[in-house]
């Protein structure tokens, strides 16, 4: 209900369409939000991503699975939507990926009695375990890792600082600043 209230307030405050979409995207992917959120709204938010190879429901499902694989509560949903964007880019260059993704979507939906997005979290986790080792799972697993942990936004959140040469390295910026070891 909280999600719904925030959404309502956003409308009432005459939030711009862009802000609303960003907000709805944030809300979309938590299980609670999904069960409350009319699919047409989710789908229209997904349409805004302009994904050439992925329909809105598939995009939602992939974002949902990538969060289940590497769940970071502190990460905004936009970070997981970047995984979906990368999948869309992969589909441009890897010809067989279209089939793989549609198979993956079908398998997940079938296993979840026709609607993955509505399934309970514990059920989803159990279903994902049964897919481990499959080509479909391996692709999504590796794609999620490379999209998430190469993302500078994620680096900021977990404390990896990336390129340092433009700051002169760490010689004067804490390469030896550890303070918790016993003397």
């Amino acid at each position, binding site marked *: 209900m909280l999600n719904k209230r925030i959404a309502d307030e956003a409308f009432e405050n005459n939030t711009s369409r862009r802000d609303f979409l960003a907000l709805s995207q944030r809300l979309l992917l938590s299980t609670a939000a999904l069960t409350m959120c009319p699919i047409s709204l989710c789908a229209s938010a997904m349409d805004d991503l302009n994904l050439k190879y992925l329909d809105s429901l598939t995009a939602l499902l992939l974002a949902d699975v990538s969060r289940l694989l590497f*769940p970071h509560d*502190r990460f905004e949903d936009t970070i997981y939507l970047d995984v979906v964007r990368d999948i869309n880019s992969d589909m441009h260059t890897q010809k067989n990926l279209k089939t793989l993704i549609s198979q993956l979507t079908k398998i997940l939906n079938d296993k979840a009695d026709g609607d993955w997005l509505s399934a309970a979290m514990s059920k989803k986790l159990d279903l994902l375990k049964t897919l481990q080792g499959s080509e479909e799972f391996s692709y999504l697993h590796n794609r999620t890792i490379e999209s998430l*942990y190469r993302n500078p936004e994620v680096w900021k959140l977990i*404390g990896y600082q990336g390129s340092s040469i433009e700051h002169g390295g760490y010689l004067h910026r804490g390469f*030896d600043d550890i303070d918790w070891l016993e003397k």
Partner: protein
Amino acid sequence: MTKKFNLSDDSVVVVIGSGAGGGVLANELAQRGIDVVCLEAGRRLAQADIVNNDTEMFGKLTWLDPRVASGQAIPGFPVWTCKTVGGTTMHWTASCPRLQEHEFKARSTYGEIAGANLVDWPLDLQELAPYYSLAEDRMGVTGTHDIPRLPGNNNYKVLEAGARKVGYTEINTNNVAINSEARDGRAACLQIGFCTSGCVIQAKWSTLYTEMPAAEKTGHFELRPESMVVAIKHDKQGRASEVHYLNGDGELKKQKLRAVCVAGNAVETSRLLLNSASNRFPGGLANSSDQVGRNYMRHFIAGVVGEMPGSVNIHRGAHQAGIVKDESGHNPERGFAGGILMLTAPFTPEIFAKFLQPGGWGRDLASTLENYDHLAAMLVHGEDLPEMTNRITVHSKQKDAYGLPVPIVHYKEHPNTTKMKAYAIEKGKNVYRSLNASKIHTMVDVFPATHNMGTARIGHNAKTSVCNAWGQTHDISNLFISDGSLFPSVGCENPTLTIVALVLRQADYLEDLLKRGNI
């Protein structure tokens, strides 16, 4: 003024490869006035090409042509070597420990071990020591020649504190070929991180910007990048006479020569010798002993990762300026032969995500990754034993884009290595345990081999070794091997310093032969 040599010039020494072995040998010969053509398969990067981005540099530096893995080698990517001017000196962490005296005498020290093709080296530490010293001076190795050691970074301080708690004493910031102060026209280390992606400020020794330009200044040296050697040809007397290579446009070129030195890293060196088979040498060049490609050794390498009580920021600073040597000796009471090193090593979030639990996912793994700034990590590595059956061969059908049969890397762990690895990982865990790590993880059997050795071993006996004590092949007097392939056993130390020492010694020998007209 960069020299150009004619393809028909049969007075040149051809060096194949421009890394630690080939790059140093080529420059050393050129300094002595010997004309050298260096053929390098990879491109020559400009300094501006080197950036603090592991993914980008992986693409620029890595040898990505197909290699087939067999046994316990990592499928699809059994070895991690470089294809670029500078070879693996671009990717290396510059860790430069010397081999220990007993490691030159593996057979005498360890005794007979079932399955292991153990031998003593045909030379000892005393004989190699002067060349070690020359190599250390040349490369600017810290802790030698009055060069100060690097200061320790946070990851080192954790290793040091933990190691002291468990009772170790041989702990320091290692001997590294990374400038701790400006030297040899190169800057001092700024603790940038990214050592394995090429050093942006050239504080780390790499042949790309040390040996190569120095050789070019002599007027006796020509580097030909993007030159993939396809075969070494011989004359009717069975002496090497030409090197055939494909240039960057895919044209076949034939370089005449007086002598040829192969330094392609163990896999490519073996492949070249095997792919150069002829009617006279049906098993490949220099292979009358049937030892070419055999006795392939790596070091077992495992990561130990601690989730520490406070932040570490492991990514800051020089990668392997931190070592514990207490376990490096031979102590049979531990249940295995040979020694172990513990070295600091940072990893990126992506590498942790891939290898902390290969194939893993879920909340526990994500929480460790979210704790990235609290992670400390080390690599433990130890001596691998030579086995005849661990070997590089060439595929009977599969060819790469050059039309060359691809190499097959076959590796299975000796039981000695299995025991040593389990012991080393436990000892590594103890270090972080002593500092109250909340969780300890390992990364085992996940890394492709970066230390590749032993496939053209030196020895006195032409029936059981490929090269004599100077790396001259027993079968072909003007064919030399000039890389880690030479090692008859590997000790537990990172191999590069020993490779450089061996080729400096080879340069003396080769110069003498050339002067005396013996080749």
